């Protein structure tokens, strides 16, 4: 199989509101990702993006994003109604063909445009579940409660995850919320949906992100130390919450196995865990032990612009390989309520 690497990453600093439409989000972030390795759109073989119409609340919102690209002459282009990390997966598959050597991947999401936790209820079965009004925080709270009931974690464990992520975010200029915060302060917060408190949930952010992929020697020419995608796989699980063991993630476990996470020491992992307890589930599923630094960026608990959060995990993990601060990194993205669908990749330097 052809070697493919992440060679560039750019993101807009996440914040509560970015006053920008789709082209205004897409143009600067894609241009930055290409410019920093000396490329323009004319050098790109394939372009792929991820976004959802349910944030702006209108169909075909991704069509406007094309106007933020130099899509002229016409380009090879595709779009997934999934997190941008899945667009990266499609671009990886496209590069395996061998006829083109570079791909631009981007995604954009503005949570400021609507009541996101309530909107996410429309991911549920429209006949039996949507009428219940199961918002995303309540669904995650069921999962957190199941972990406590199974004695797999305590509320204090959840708070410790949040404190570490918020502390890491202090060093991340692109994070939306950052420390300082301590465990006792979190445990003193009122419940939003028991056992979840505000700081155990990700913020709702606006952002956009872009990644450039390159194959083989093209990657080596573009950067000194490409972040090679050594393994990448994604798996889903039954949709109904009652059909899954919510305290574990069978799909993340399987995807990690297929991606080869356990084949070597993992220096750093960027996990897409929008709720603190989900990081614990993911670490266990992927077998990430004490020797692995988790979410040096602060993760989704420091910035969560829906549809870009997964791609940013890939970009953050790759950045550490590109800079030489890590030799082997794991990137993860999730989709759906309570970690239904998981994408895992192993990135390595040479």
């Amino acid at each position, binding site marked *: 199989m052809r070697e493919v690497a992440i060679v560039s990453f750019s993101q807009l600093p996440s914040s509560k509101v970015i006053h920008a439409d789709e082209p205004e989000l897409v143009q600067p972030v894609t241009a930055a990702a290409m410019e920093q390795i000396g490329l323009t759109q004319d050098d790109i073989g394939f372009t792929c993006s991820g976004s959802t119409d349910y944030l702006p609340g209108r169909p075909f919102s991704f069509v406007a994003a094309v106007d933020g690209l130099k899509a*002229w002459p016409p*380009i090879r282009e*595709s779009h997934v109604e999934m997190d941008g990390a899945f667009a990266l997966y*499609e671009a990886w598959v496209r590069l395996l063909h061998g006829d083109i050597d570079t791909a631009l991947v981007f995604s954009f999401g503005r949570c400021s445009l609507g009541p996101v936790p309530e909107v996410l209820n429309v991911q549920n079965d429209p006949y039996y579940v949507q009428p219940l009004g199961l918002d995303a925080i309540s669904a995650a709270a069921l999962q957190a409660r199941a972990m406590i009931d199974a004695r797999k974690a305590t509320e204090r464990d959840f708070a410790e995850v949040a404190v570490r992520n918020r502390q890491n975010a202090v060093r991340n200029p692109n994070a939306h919320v950052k420390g300082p915060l301590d465990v006792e302060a979190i445990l003193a917060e009122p419940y939003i949906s028991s056992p979840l408190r505000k700081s155990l949930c990700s913020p709702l952010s606006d952002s956009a992100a872009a990644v450039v992929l390159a194959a083989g020697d093209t990657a080596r020419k573009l950067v000194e130390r490409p972040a090679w995608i050594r393994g990448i796989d994604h798996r*889903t699980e039954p949709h109904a919450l009652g059909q899954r063991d919510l305290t574990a993630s069978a799909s993340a476990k399987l995807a990690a196995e297929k991606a080869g996470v356990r084949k070597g020491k993992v220096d750093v992992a960027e996990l897409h865990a929008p709720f603190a307890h989900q990081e614990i589930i993911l670490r266990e599923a992927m077998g990430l032990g004490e020797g692995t630094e988790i979410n040096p960026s602060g993760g989704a608990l420091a910035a969560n612009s829906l549809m870009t959060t997964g791609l940013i995990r890939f970009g953050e993990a790759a950045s550490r390989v590109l800079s030489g601060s890590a030799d082997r990194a794991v990137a993860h993205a999730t989709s759906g309520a309570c970690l239904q669908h998981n994408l895992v990749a192993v990135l390595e330097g040479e």
Partner: protein
Amino acid sequence: MAEHCAVIGIGQTKHSESRRDLSIPGLVRDAAVRALQDANMSWKDIECVVIGTAPDMFEGVMMPELWLSDALGASGKPIFRVHTAGSVGGSTAVVASHLVQAGVHEKVLTLAFEKQSESNAMWALSPAVPFQPQLVAGAGGYFAPLIRSYIRRSDAHPDTGCMVAVKDRQHGLLNPDAHLHLDQSLEEVKASPMLWDPIRYSETCPSSDGAVAMVLVNDKHAARVQNPAWITGTSVRTERTFFAGRDQVNPAAGKLCAKDVYDQAGITNPLKEIDCAEVYVPFSWFEPMWLENLGFAEEGQGWRMTMEGKTKIGGEMPWNMSGGVMCTNPIGASGMLRFAEAARQVRGTAGRHQVEGAKVALGHAYGGGSQFFAMWIVSSER
């Protein structure tokens, strides 16, 4: 490209205005089961599911692949969701074929659906974009000016669009799965109400409920059936919606996409080397426009092929043998139906709308403001 890819299973639902007898999971599963049976396979043979549908708002379910994973036996497997506007059915099949060609998977189920009866697509296609004037009502409002421009440029016979409608509806009568079964005369089509001048009611596609599925495999598994349809070319192209000087009547992205897919399949003269085509014609006038865009006719001459009956079954270049989008339009599935019907033709399984001896066929889809294109060439020979 590490592997060849073939279509060995094709299934579709009976399409209709409202499949009240099926839920959305029931609809996609119906098409998928038919494709699996056609491929002589069961759910456990499938390694990966690639699903496409047009805007999620049509059914009111966000990222429906999450919900539909159960109905599609995807638990423990990868399921992947594509969305490229009207071209989505085509793009979805292209992504699925790439997974096989790249050697990532050996056996992939791909499918596309729309259940238009769950919403009102006409108004879903008329979004009020903030800070922009509301210019159009429905897709016809967007495309009518392009058609008028085509007629002006080519000095086309004014009956051309009606002729396409009559022809596609005659083809649809041969297709038991088609939504519309209309035996219409030219006079009847011409007498139908004008909706968006020059588009008459009978020159528009219907709103349908339906799904289509295909099983795509590599060389190793193609021998499961006697008659695989080999994918000899795939391509996608996109251009921006608005900029000065853009030719929306004969878009460059369509021309480039066609050239790319012909080059891959070794086709230099599509009129001579392709036996038939299933092309996305949601409004009748798009047949002559795409005949020119895809290189089947010189610029300005496409309408003559239609008027001369060359695009009928039995004509020189049959187009939309299944009745096409003019007879069946579950939007998100309409592109994949074109790809699947092209594959049926080269497999020799197209029933009463089979083009005798078809060996090479084109499947085509487009979307957005005539700006997203997806195509494939399928052949009875690898």
